[in-house]
């Protein structure tokens, strides 16, 4: 039974225009992967920083997975949402990153994008009233089939610190260096 421990935290979101942010995250893996312990999805608190465009989340990750194949290597999907004073929220960033395939400590920077406003009126509304288009299907995040239909804007970065421990992969001829 090959096992992967993913220990770490979603550290912060940087370079976003909006001041108040929270982030929902999901760990997605293939069908040959099974969760042993831990939470594979979650949502951070709303965080903001007045001085710099950086929201600290420090949401802990502690996931223990087991796998029967390398296929479907886990990916970390993040969605960053902005919150305004009326407690309304809308997505301002989608992004994903594969969990690194080497053991040890990693800092993963997830570049995110958001759906571009659909026309002039929409962009005006977004600029002054907040809000934004979101994905109807979240699988667009990781599947490449329909992504070409999207028009997006690049937005900030989500930074995650991951420490990875791999067990028993060498029994199946997979070695990490």
């Amino acid at each position, binding site marked *: *039974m*090959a096992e992967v421990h993913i220990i770490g935290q979603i550290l912060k979101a940087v370079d976003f225009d909006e001041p108040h942010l929270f982030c929902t995250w999901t760990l997605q893996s*293939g*069908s*040959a992967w*099974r*969760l*042993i*312990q*831990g939470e594979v999805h979650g949502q951070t608190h709303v965080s903001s920083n007045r001085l710099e465009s950086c929201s600290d989340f420090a949401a802990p990750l502690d996931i*223990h997975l*087991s*796998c*029967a*194949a*390398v*296929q*479907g290597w886990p990916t970390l999907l993040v969605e960053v949402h902005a919150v305004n004073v009326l407690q309304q929220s809308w997505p301002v960033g989608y992004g994903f990153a594969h969990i690194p395939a080497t053991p040890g400590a990693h800092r993963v920077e997830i570049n995110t994008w958001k759906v571009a406003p659909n026309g002039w009126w929409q962009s005006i509304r977004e600029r002054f009233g907040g809000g934004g288009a979101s994905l109807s299907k979240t699988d667009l995040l990781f599947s490449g089939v329909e992504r*070409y*239909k999207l*028009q997006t804007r690049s937005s900030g970065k989500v930074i995650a610190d991951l420490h990875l421990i791999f*067990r028993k992969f060498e*029994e*199946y001829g*997979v070695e990490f260096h």
Partner: protein
Amino acid sequence: METPSPPRRGKKKRKTQTTRAYRRCEQEVESLLRETKYEDCGRQELELEARSLQFFHGADDAAVGEKEIPDQEITPEEKGAEENSIDGEAATETIDSPAQTYIDIELQEPPLVWPGVHKQVHYYDDSLLYRPANAAHFQLHLSDCNPGPSQIRMLNRFQEQAKGDASKLSSDLVSELCDDSRSQFVTDSRLYRTVCNKEFQCIFLAPAPINQFMGIPTRRCLTLTFKQLRFTAHPLLLTEHRMAQQLEDLFDQYTENRNRQVCRKLKEELDIARQVGAKLVLSARPELTDEIRRQLRLTQKLRQRYYLESTAERNLSLRLLRVWSKLKALRSQQDFQCTRFQLKLHVGYHPNLESAYSDWKQQFEDDLAEVYREQLELFYCRRRQWGESMVDGASPSKPPRKPNFEKLMASLKKDYDRAFKDPEEPLVDFVRLYADEAAAKLFLPASEQLSKRRNRSYFLKLYLDELYVGQTRTYRLEDDLHLYMNESIGVLLERTLPQNLNIWLYEKSTLTQQGRRLAVMSTRLDLSRKDKAVQLKLGFLAFPSSPKMAGDVCLYYDYGPIEVRRGARDLDDIQPLPDALLRTLFPPRSKAVAAVASTTEPVTPIGPCHKRKKHKLPALLFTEQQLQFCPIRTLFSNKRYQLLRSRHQQRNVHTKQLRFIPALEREIISDDGDALSTAGDSSQLLEPGTYWNPIDLHKHRGYKFLKLLYEIIGNQSARRAKAQQLAHPLLFLADGFDLSLATGWTSLWRALCSLFQGQSTAMIREPAAWQPQAEHDQYQHFVVSLHVVRATGVPVRSRHILNIEEDPNSEADMSNSLFVTQTLMYSNVRPFVSLSYGQRLSRSRSAEGSNPTWNEELQLQLTGCQKDMREDLKISLFDEVIERQLSDEASDLYQRVQCNWLGEYRVPVSSLLTSGKFEGCIELAMPKVLIGYRRPLIESVTNMPPDQYPEFKESVHIWFYLTIEPNRCDLPPLPTNVLACAETVQLQAYLNERRMELQQLLPQPQRYVEPLVCTALGKRVCVTRLLEQLPLPGVLASSKSALESACRFVSLLCQLRSYDPCMGFRGVWLDNQTLLDSTWCSVKDQGVLLCNYMLGLGLECWLVLGHSCPYGECCYVLFRQPDTAELLFVDPASGRHYQLQDVYCPLRRVYCVVGKQNMYFNIQTETRVSMTHFNLQDAACWFPLFNRSSNQSAPEGGVQELDYAYKKSFELSQLQKNIERKIMKKISAWRTTRKTNFNRAFLPHLQQILSDMESLATFSRARYEENAYSEQLERVFPNYMLHGFTLNFPYTNLAAVSDRIRTTCIHYNNSPTVEFCVAVHLKAYANDVISVWVFLLAVVPLDVNQRGQ
């Protein structure tokens, strides 16, 4: 643009439209090239060098200008350059295979699309690697020039390329390369880096608005629609079928002709040709004679063709008519019809006959004139030829004759008759009638119908290029030998196009799943036509093995993008790409592959079964599965995974609280070890093995028997209670429901009356008295909390242990002072209390001294099903010994903590669950001999008499408060009141009356005990019947102190630990036979048995029903001491005697007293037992059930078996060995970290002590004379530090023994030099009632310096 291939490309590109951006780019490149031409030579050389370097060691910028050239293939040059890093090369090599399958589109730059290229096989062989060398590979003829290394390399490269093309290196290329004017050469920025023989075709996609561009469709749908299948040869074929099919074919031809309108078109063409000819003739210019002649010849040919076609058409109609009339005749002749074909004739006449005639005549005359002219021309031509031949003097022959006009006219007339219809002839139009089923009226003669109905159904299987795609449904053969299918099968094709379509015809058989293969049809798929469906008619011929069959299938197929099909959603609406683009995108397999395929595969595909024989297809495997380490199932079956997972899910109570799960699978042990085996657990009762000890077997059977008995009685009463609730008779009698009246005619009459009168209201159903509760077999959490206040009389350490703890320096002074010693004596123990259940344990702080106060609450979390909680809660007393170990360095001081077991108190969880709480003061069960410790004797402390120090008793008492949460003491009582009653009706009624009286007097309603109790036979009897004089077992009866022996014997019976309503007063009371046979019982049965024995001994005794501390509802025996006439209680579970005023008596409440003749209920308000009056004659205190005023007297006897024959116990020696071995094995097993030594030297002493113990326990009444034994032992072995104790318990099974040993924690002694000694002594009474004595001793040899003191 100097190299040969680029201009072609350029030309090709120019055909398509180029964008402005592209053109600009092109211009820039060309201007750049032009500039480079006029550079000076030296720089040119340098640049040339750089360029070729760039080329060979390919950098990214080399490809900037040549984006349209795919650089997917890795050239051998590059391989050669990278020969050091084969690994990296392998990586790049594997990368390019997916790159070929994807199509990338860049939208910003001139967009490019690469077609999917079939993968080339590369072999990693050093011999195949090409290394660029600076030396020429071939001899250069031109010796005059001296080419530089880069030129030589270039030459080599071109030579290799030429080799690849199997052509020669062109000499002008060589000369050009070797030429000094090198600037002429590399001028193109397009550098070709590949020798791939595949020619890439670029596709240009014009930029489109983003909402219109939807990418390139890679997926297409091939839709095959099967219309019908027709048999042209079949065993069932009749003449009618043949004719109908012929007619059908003819009609198809007819309709096709009509659709094509060949005749009309020919006619028009002919007219045009004639007009042109006429014009040409009119112009009559001499240079046009050839033209005229050709035109005339064309006209002639057209005319002849027109005649032919027209004739054919006419013939077809005539044949149609003829066959149709024949078919009609046949149908009318035979009395059935089995085909559907129907024709309708529209017969019309020319509206204007005159004009038709004139038209016809006009046409005929025109044609005739034309024919005549042609003939004349021919004649003139021949005559001229003849004349010439005559001039030459060749063979004389007849001159050609002039064409005869009459003859010509006649022949033309004949042709006309054949080809065109007479103007008088009616115009016939054929229309096929598709009559509906009812109108068709198909029927067959009965005999044929029968044979035909038999399983004639067929289906088709579809193969695309030998790949099985699907099959149609099964269709029944219609009477007209058609299968009307109208079924379409859609095949989704991704990137590959099948070439052949093969259809297998199967006959469905009823016997087997597979049908019988009949025939195969094969055709080539033409998928290039995108727009319209292709219609096909495939003929087939059955295999020679099967009955002769032939026929054809009508199908059409359609090939198009799937998106078209769901075109309703405009989001995915994809415009069809132009044809040329599609063709390049979906190349019909590359030629090489096709060639290979055609050589290997036969033209007709092999059937599936045949195929299986030839090469076995692998089982269907997803790539993902193929690449898995192991199947997912093994992951699930992994023990570690299961454990981790179930711990995570928190559903299983066993795994929920697991702290540690081993990392390696082999370290995981199955959890059904001895740890979970419990004393009463029936599944673990017996050690697995082939040989069972007969005593074990007896105990096991007894246990099973009692459980079964309880279950049966419980079920029976539950069933009866339910039946009584529901089963009122359907027919109610009008007044009073008396069985004595309900017979005979009168009752019938009454019944009838009652039907009309309506039911009497007297019969009111009682509310449900008993509801089954299934709650107590669910898993629950319990919190057991023990509030332990204080204890008295804790034994103190004897000298040896004392010594250890003393500081050697201070001891010298202290030993002088007696007072200090005495104080020390009583404070040298550090006791603590632990509460444990199973593996769980919780302990208190340790206090000082022999009368410690903790005042602490211990909590224990338990989980389990109430029914399965059979173990005892253990409240154990330990002494914490802290031993200082001085190492060589004075600075280091080690402490070794050791816990010595002093005694315990067991509370069955089942009784705690029933009662909810226990409180007060209890006496700990201390070991008879406790070596290393000494009882705190009052005399040694002070001279005062012990009465003034009531707490300095000789036993250890603990004040405690024990509760269990959730406190559900709602165990539903067994509804024994529904069971059959053995008493007379009068007695029952009397008891009912007395109950009414009593319930007003009782201060507490729960004191009431139902006098009718259920026996083991499942009948209710009065409780007084249980008491009868019973003889003691033979050996005991003869002993001098029979009373003590009887108590001892009864206390050694095994108590059942079970959360069961049968254990209570309203449960089952066992008679002596069942009890003694099984040797298992509840505590109340022990009381009854003891009472009966005492009656047998002639004592005046009563049975006291009450509530005692660790057992809940139980029976004590009250008897009058014959010598002193003093009343005493006897606890049957321990055999101990208590005075009535004893506050430490575990009996906490008295409900009633049962004598042989009467039963007295306690109606005193006082609840404390010690304050209760036991003058049974006092009517103010006791309420007699039977009194003299009523004529009822208590029923007696009949339950117990008076002459019960006791059985002899089995041989004990084997059991003793077993127990000994088990204990030693267990101690070794528990001490996992250390080696366990057993000391045999102490064994005889211990055995000797144990042999005395049984009689001591029986007769000494818990007096402490055993100090003598420990002192004796300490005297014999002065150089050892000893801690040991005896354990005594009735034997149930080996697991219970090991459980007892484990709770003493003697195995935790972690002194490195410790040795253990185990002695076992068994004392058997009758009927396998066995008392087990175990002596456990932990021996630590004293150090030399300690010995010295």
